[in-house]
Structure formats: C-alpha cells, structure tokens
C-alpha cells in the first residue's frame, strides 16, 4: 500500500466516524419526532366529540312538571321517557330491535343532557328544540375515521343497521363534531365518550401543590445549610453522600416507602393527593437540593465577604445577599424537579391511585387519580375510544411539562447573574 492509499483510507475512516456520530444524533432526534407525532396523530381527535343533532319535544304528559318548575323539581323529574320518546324519532325505525339499536348510538348521558337543557330554560314544555346529544363511543370513533367499517359484521361492534342509520345521519347533516367539554370537565368513566381528565387534573394539581409546599422550603433550607453553614465533618459528608444516593433511588422504592410508612404505619387515607404529594416530595427533595446547592455555590465568595466586611452577621450575609442572588437557579431547579414529579407514575400506583374514581376530588384527602396514572389506567382499557383519550391526556401532560421547563429556562436566562 502506498502512502497515498493509506492516507485515503485514513480519511475514509475519518468520514465514516463522523457519519456514525451524525447518524446517531439524527436517529435520536428521529425518535423524538416519531414519538411526538405518534401521540399527536392519535390524540388530537379526542378534543372533539361527535354529536347527533336531535329534535327534542318536551311533552308535559311524559314529564309531569310545569313550565317554570323549580330547580329541585326538575332534578327530581324523570327524563327517561322523554329521552326514549325523542331519540327513537331520530330515524324511522320499524320495530323494537331497530329502536334498541338506534338508542345505542347515543351516549349513556343523553338523559342528563336533555335534563340540563331544561334546567337552562324551564319554559320548554310543549316546545321543540334541537339539541346536540353526545354520540356513543362506537359512532364517535366511526365518525372520526378511527373505526374500519369494511370488516365483516360479526367482527364489528357496530351492526349493519347502525351503519345505515349513521349514513342517514351523515346525509341529513345531523351528525357533527363539537368541542369535547366532557374531556376536560368529567372524571373517569367506563364509557370512553363520557370519560374525562377533570378528576386527574385536580388530583395532579393537589399532589404537585403539596409536593411544592413540602419539598421547596426543606430543599432550600437544607442546601443553604450544606453550602453555607455546615462544618466540614463526617456528618456533613454522610448527608451529602446520602442526598446523591437518594437522587438515584428508583422511584418505585419511594412507593414502597409510602406504602409502609404513610399508609400502613401512620394510616393516611389511601389513593389521595395528600399521600401522593408527600411521596413525591420525598422523591423530589434530593433532586431539588442538588441544583439549589449548585446555584448557591455559583455565587462568588466576594459577595459574602463584602457583606461580612460591613458588619453583617453570617446569617445576614447569606439571607440578605447570597440567597436572593441564587434564587433564579433555585427556582428553576425546583420547577424542573416538580416537572419530573408531575410525570411520575410508579409510586402513585403503589399508593392506590389506580382506583377507579368517578368523582372529581374536592380536597387533597379525597380519593383521586392523577394525569400519568390516568394514562396508565386508560391504556389498559380495551375500548378503542380510550386510545385517543390516553393520547390526548399525554398531550396535556407534555404541554404542562413543556411550559414548566420553559419557565425554568426563562427564569435562569433572564434573572441569573453570570459572574465571569
């Protein structure tokens, strides 16, 4: 091999190596794109729901209440007959079986929706109005194009006759898509068309709030102690090693800790945001202490010495000068820690947040779910409608995380002083 050939070979190797590096970065970026694209393409349809435009006639004989009835009277009144009577008029069905199939196209909440319309306007007796009634999950998925209609009938959840009705609805423009308010307002439900993340949102909010209230002050105080006051001795070293190790303990171990100490020993109520918040706080604590200490360390000694030189006590130099300067870094570290806590699932499963909770929690000691746990729960469900709901929940979760991370980056870039 001549010198030139060898050189060429070496340069080829150089190019190859560079190519490997570039490819790896590209592959990693591609994964991000595929993941996000996959979630968004599945989930974006969940923000709309299919409604069937139905004429509703409020028949006094069936309702047994008067125009101008009070709220209690309406709440007690039975709207079931009115619902049946009106829904079967949506399509000229021939017999009971066909009527049953027709009724199955509407969600289980049609009765409540009609009642709500009457609650809004209690002078509807004897009048006919058109209402957008939520369609059942199967029709919803069919209308959104997520459901193949060319399968043989026995493998479909929708019968041939229901398809005929659906086509009739489409032809007469009786079916349309509205904003899915249920997704944001409702709690969990066995019916995908009625299930929402309202409960999970509140549950997550309480958990993160408690986590913040517990973890932030303790983390800041602990890092101030370790960085500014702690004498250099065995105890301090031990605490430091401990914090580093805790930050790397798998999150599920915190779930076991919570199960044994919080639930078994001191008997806090299961499945509640209170326990979730405490667990997440214990888990987040070391993850906040580490960036807090880094930002305290970044404040140059001259600041402390300047304060001490004009007669401040050690405490005053720290709390009046060092801590305010380190605050942006501290806050951004805290927000990133909270963002991690928001996405944490495993410990919450162990403390029983997987329970099926329909009611929206009104306090941190009510049983509740949380956003990531809701993702887990729905992803285990077989119904097709839950796939888009799960993806949409993930979209909400990712949105929160992105906002939190942006705030953290913004705080650091805007307010943090560069010292060199």
């Amino acid at each position, binding site marked *: 091999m001549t010198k030139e050939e060898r050189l060429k070979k070496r340069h080829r190797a150089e190019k190859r190596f560079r190519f490997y590096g570039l490819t790896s970065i590209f592959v990693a970026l591609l994964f991000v794109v595929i993941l996000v694209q996959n979630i968004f393409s599945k989930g974006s349809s969940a923000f709309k729901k299919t409604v069937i435009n139905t004429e509703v006639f409020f028949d006094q004989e069936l309702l047994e209440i008067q125009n101008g009835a009070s709220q209690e009277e309406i709440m007690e009144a039975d709207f079931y007959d009115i619902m049946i009577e009106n829904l079967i008029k949506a399509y000229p069905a021939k017999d009971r079986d066909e009527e049953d199939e027709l009724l199955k196209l509407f969600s289980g909440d049609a009765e409540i929706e009609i009642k709500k319309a009457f609650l809004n306007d209690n002078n509807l007796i004897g009048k006919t109005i058109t209402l957008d009634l939520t369609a059942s999950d199967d029709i919803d998925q069919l209308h959104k194009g997520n459901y193949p209609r060319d399968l043989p009938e026995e493998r479909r959840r929708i019968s041939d006759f229901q398809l005929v009705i659906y086509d009739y609805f489409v032809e007469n423009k009786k079916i349309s898509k509205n904003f899915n308010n249920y997704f944001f307002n409702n709690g969990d439900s066995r019916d995908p068309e009625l299930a929402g993340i309202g409960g999970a949102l509140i549950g997550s909010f309480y958990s993160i709030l408690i986590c913040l209230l517990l973890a932030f002050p303790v983390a800041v105080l602990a890092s101030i102690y370790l960085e500014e006051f702690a004498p250099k001795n065995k105890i301090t070293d031990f605490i430091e090693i401990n914090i580093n190790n805790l930050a790397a303990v798998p999150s*599920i171990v915190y779930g076991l*800790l919570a199960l044994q100490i919080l639930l078994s020993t001191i008997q806090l109520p299961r499945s509640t945001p209170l326990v979730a918040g405490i667990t997440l706080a214990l888990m987040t604590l070391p993850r906040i202490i580490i960036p807090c200490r880094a930002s305290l360390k970044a404040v140059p000694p001259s600041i402390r010495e300047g304060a001490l030189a004009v007669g401040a006590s050690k405490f005053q130099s720290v709390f009046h000068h060092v801590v305010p300067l380190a605050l942006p870094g501290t806050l951004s570290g805290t927000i990133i820690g909270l963002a991690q806590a928001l996405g944490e699932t495993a410990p919450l499963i162990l403390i029983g947040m997987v329970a099926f909770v329909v009611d929206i929690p009104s306090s941190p000691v009510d049983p509740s779910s949380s956003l990531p746990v809701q993702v887990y729960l729905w992803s285990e469900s077989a119904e097709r409608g839950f796939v888009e709901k799960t993806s949409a929940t993930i979209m909400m979760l990712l949105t929160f995380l992105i906002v939190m991370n942006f705030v953290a980056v913004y705080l650091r870039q805007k307010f943090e002083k560069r010292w060199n």
Partner: protein
Amino acid sequence: MNFVLLFLITIFSLSLFFYGRSKTKTISIKENIKLNALPKFYGYYLVLWCSIPALVFLLVWSLFEPVIIKSIIIETAANQGAIFSDKNEANLIYEKIKAIHLGTYFGDIDSILKESALAYAKFINLFTNSKVVLIFGIIIASVIYSLKKIKNNNKARDDVEAILKGLLFVSSLIAILTTLGIIFSLLFESIKFFSVINVFDYLFGTNWSPQRAFVRDASSITAAEFEELKDAFGFIPLIAGTSFIAFIAMLVAVPIGLFSGIYMAEYASIKVRRISKPIIEILAGIPTVVYGFFAALTVGPFFRQVGENLGLTVSSESALAAGLIMGIMIIPYVSSLSDDVINSVPQSLRDGSYAVGATKSETIKQVVIPAALPGIIGSVLLAVSRAIGETMIVVMAAGLAANLTINPLESTTTITTQIVMILVGDQEFDSPKTQSAFALGLTLFIATLILNYIAQRAVKKYREKYD
C-alpha cells in the same frame, strides 16, 4: 380541629411579634438602655418560641394519634367479645366502628359494635381535649420563658440565628430520615418474608409464581403449604428478565448515546449543539408512562406484525419492544454524561495527538476515549441503574409471567413489574406474597445503590485526574 389550632398558633405568633417589637422599643426608651439587638429580632424571637414547640408537638401528636386510638379500640372491641382472626378482620371492624361514629354506617349494628363506637367517641374526645390542653400549656410555658429572656435584654439576634441554624440543620437531616425510612420499611417486611422463605431459596430459585402462595395465616403454615411456598419465590427468572431487558436497552442506548456525545463534543458546531442537545434531552424529560404507552400500543403490535410477515412468532409483550423503548429513554443519560466527560479531557492531549499527524477520529479513538474511559463507564453504569429501576415501560410493555428465556421475541418479566403486580389493588396483610414485593424492593435498592456507588466513584476519580 387541627386547622383551628394552626390558625390560633399563627395569630398568637403574629401578635407576639408586634408585642415583642414595641415592648422592647418602649423599654429601651423608658429606661434608657441600649438594646442588644434591633427590636424586630425580639419579635422574631417570640414568634419562634411561640410557634416551633407547639407545631412540632402538633405534628408528632397527629402522626401517632390515629395509630394509638386504633390499637386501643381494637383491644376494647376484643375485650367486649368481638372475634377476628387476623389483622384484616381487625381493620374491618375498626373501619366499621369509625363509620358508626361518623354516622355513615348502614349495616347491622350489634351491641359489641355499638359499645365500641361509644368507646371510640369517648377516646376521640379525650385525645382532642388533651391535645388542646397540652398545646396551650406548651405555648404558655414557652411564651413565659421567652418573655423573661426578652425582659433581660438578651442578644436576640444571636438567639434567633441559633434557632434558625438548628432549623436548617434539621432540614438537611430529612434526607437521612428518608434513607432510614426506606431501609427500615424495606427491611421490616423483608425480614418477615425471609423468616418464611429461606434466603437461598429466594436467591437461587428458578421459579417465580407468587400467585400460588396464597396463605391465609402466615404464622401457621402446614408442611404442604411450605413446600409450595419454598418453590414459588425464585429470584433467578426476575433478575434474568431484568438484566435481559436492560441489556437490550443498553444495546440501543450505548452506541447511539455515545456517538451522539462524541459528535456533540468534538465535531458539532455551536449552533448544531445548541439545537440538538436540548431536543435529545427531551427524551429524558418525557414521563416513562408515555414511553410505556408507546411501547405497548405501537411498538409491540408493530413488531408482532413484522414477525408475522417474516413467519416468526413474536409476543406482543416482547422483551425486544420494552428494551428498545427503554433504550431510547436512556439515550440522553449516556449522551449528556459522555459529552460532559469528553469535554473535560484537556485540550493538550488532543493537540499532542494532532501534532504527530493523527486525524480527528484517530485522536478521538486512541487518545480522547481512553482518557475519558472511566467517566464513560461511570455514565453507562448510571444508565444501567436507571434501566433496572425503570418501572412503567416494563409494567406496560413487558410480560407478567416469569419466563427464563434469552429469546428477545418472547415475553419476560422484571423485578419492578412484579412489585407493581403484587401490590396493585387490594393486598393481603402479612402474606408472603405481599412481603415478597418488599424483598424485591430491597434487592433492587441494594443493586442500584452498588451500581451508583461504583459509577460515582469512577466519575469522581476521573474528574480528580484532570482537575
């Protein structure tokens, strides 16, 4: 009640602040003495003395009150003739008694329950009253003590700072308390577990099927049950499955992560670096439940489809899908850490290599990487410890049955999956099955601790070499 107490403590503290501040001011003016601190510090001093002892007492009391009341009530119920054979039934009776007291119980109420409910009400009353009395006692005592100090013109600022410093120290101790809490809660149940199951049966058994181990009463196990139990908790399939999935993950994460790290540190322009690095780090910020969803609903079925087309039988919960997705999650851990490590290799080493005519890639392969190797190994070990502790991806995408297999297309299970599966939903108290989850947790805790320790040592040693 607790909220009322907290509110009262706050009000007292605030009013004492203003009292202390103005009182010392007037004393200093009236008696013409120089105060040893600014008046506000006397206010702070009173606030701290008024609130901290009372709050600590309230916290400790609230932690122990329910437990103590429960044990008293269960005992009185037993004395009155309530029959329960284990902890579960005792808990059930206690819940009933509580519900009767709150008026939310709609079942049959017999005389035992009724008496116990009355006793419960009595104890709740007694405890609440004594709590209030004790808290006020504590507040009065500490306020009297601190007022006396103030009257003597103490060095209030020094005292306040000493108290605050104590508070700072206590905050930093919480990390140690957490560790102790983890160790005790894991050990406590694990010891119970290992008193039934031999440690060696656990560590070297090759069969994991805890669902077989349904034992009503752990204290009296028959010989037949024991044989059954002995064989049900073999750890080998779990550690094999965990390592296998982690291995697949590392096969994905190490090459991609390492090459991206190298490219980022050595080749990329500032602009490329500034854009691509945060985007790759998004992968580390995405909640693992999202990966799990993606693996279970998209990747798993996709692999099975591909396998069908190729004529292979691929489980829809294959180790391959879980491992691949876990690998993607771990890429940024490897790439960011190795990027940092490579960046801190001194420039002089590279310059020396260029000076003798090496190309950039030769310099990287023969100089930079060997120099950075301990750090890179450390970062890979940290990634491994992430992989074995990762829960949601494997819970959602890997299998539930413990198979000893090295076929990546079959399903296998992991330690974390089993912990979740055992503890999700209602648990039987004191059954070896429930306890085994804690033994698994302990094993996992020790394993990750060792990996982290080695990794941190490696990285630290490496840093010291070049700093």
